[in-house]
């Protein structure tokens, strides 16, 4: 019997090694797998590459992981925010590497990794400093930049409901990077507040099929709306 349900956050993260590339879902608080991030912090790893839309905010989650020195490199679209002081400090000290990627190219490069696409031509970023040194091509009169997939060893994401095959539903804009990161990582780890019996999720509505998911851990949600 396929059973991807696991008992604890610490268990699902136990085999992540130093130097791993880890995708972390979420856009703002929506879809942020905060319990998995905190579990990652407890692992005291080093040399990590983190793929996320941002680079950590305030004094929690990814920001603390950055502060801890666990993170060697961040691949993201929007590191600088009013409350990104831990990243800012590491960056100015030259202690963290930044690969800045336009948000849509970030999403498409993650999808490409999951979809087996070797590279693709995107118009986003053409003529900007973010395309410096990259191959370009004009196709039917439009200018494009060649971009390559972003893969990861692990993806940490948050969903709304999961069954034991790993089929996932999300909730509102917390869907964001979850489905594509699940496709792009060798091992996908999901935190959800709610578990479902196999067959209880409507097959028409499943957003991430279980084939993309390896481990599911149930963690209570702090969002009261998620319980309603």
């Amino acid at each position, binding site marked *: 019997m396929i059973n991807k349900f696991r008992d604890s956050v610490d268990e699902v993260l136990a085999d992540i090694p130093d130097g791993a590339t880890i995708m972390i879902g979420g*856009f*703002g*608080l*929506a*879809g942020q797998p905060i319990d998995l991030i905190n579990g990652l912090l407890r692992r005291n790893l080093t040399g990590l590459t983190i793929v996320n839309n941002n680079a950590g905010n305030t004094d929690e989650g990814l920001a603390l992981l950055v502060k801890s020195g666990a993170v060697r490199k961040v691949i993201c*679209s*929007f*590191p*600088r*925010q009013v409350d*990104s002081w831990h*990243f*800012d400090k590491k*960056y*100015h000290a030259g202690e963290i590497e*930044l690969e*800045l*990627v*336009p*948000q*849509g*190219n*970030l*999403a*498409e490069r*993650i*999808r490409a990794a999951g979809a087996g696409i070797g590279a693709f031509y*995107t*118009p*986003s*970023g*053409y*003529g*900007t*400093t*973010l395309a410096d040194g990259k191959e370009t091509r004009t196709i039917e009169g439009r*200018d494009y930049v060649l971009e390559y997939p972003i893969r990861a060893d692990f993806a940490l994401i948050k969903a709304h409901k999961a069954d034991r095959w790993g089929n996932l539903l*999300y*909730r*509102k*804009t*917390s*869907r*964001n*990077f*979850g*489905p*594509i990161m699940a496709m792009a990582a060798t091992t996908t780890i999901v935190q959800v507040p709610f578990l479902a019996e196999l067959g209880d999720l409507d097959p028409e509505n499943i*957003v991430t099929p279980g084939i993309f998911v390896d481990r599911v851990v149930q963690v209570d949600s702090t*969002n009261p*709306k*998620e319980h309603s």
Partner: protein
Amino acid sequence: MSIGHRHPEKLTRAQMAERVASDVPAGAVVNLGIGIPTQVSNYLNPEHEIILHTENGMLGMGPEAHGDDVDVDLLNAGKLPVTEAPGCSYFHHADSFAIMRGGHLDIAVLGAFQVSQKGDLANWHTGEPDAIPAVGGAMDLAVGAKDVFVIMELMTKAGASKLVPELTYPVTGLGCVTRVYTELAIFDLDRSGNVRVTETYGGVSVADLCDMTHLDLIDATE
């Protein structure tokens, strides 16, 4: 629209947002950037059913949420809590940016540091050497929407025009801006570099604007 062109007063930021709103056709699908562009939603006619896109995965975004309506799973691109409009739908980030990059949005409304006469946009980076760069979805919005409307003050505090012959700030996207709304005038752009002034405010003339911008503007106010 309550603001006639050649209005004797300069437009306030709120009036600029209102002026943009009046140009959005009924039923259009629109992405409003962070800052003043977001205020455009305050002036859209609800009967026009303008559909708002937010790049973090939603079409049919409703107004900002307050009080009991706040749901941290329902945020806009500025990470503020919002609500649902009837007919809304959710999708993941790759699908959301496919909507943008694929040319399906009718209009993106963005802020800018500078716009060039050929419609090149600079709005993501000041170019200061020690600034940490952050781009978000700006470059994708620039290349994707059928029309890119910019709202910005025409003049910097130092008195320089932000509508320029060539960008001096880092590029966000080339040849993408189709119209610029400022406190003093509205400018229609095309990729060949012709800039048409369609409306003026604050009593300035097109000749005044030519002096201010160092551009050979076309008077299209009549």
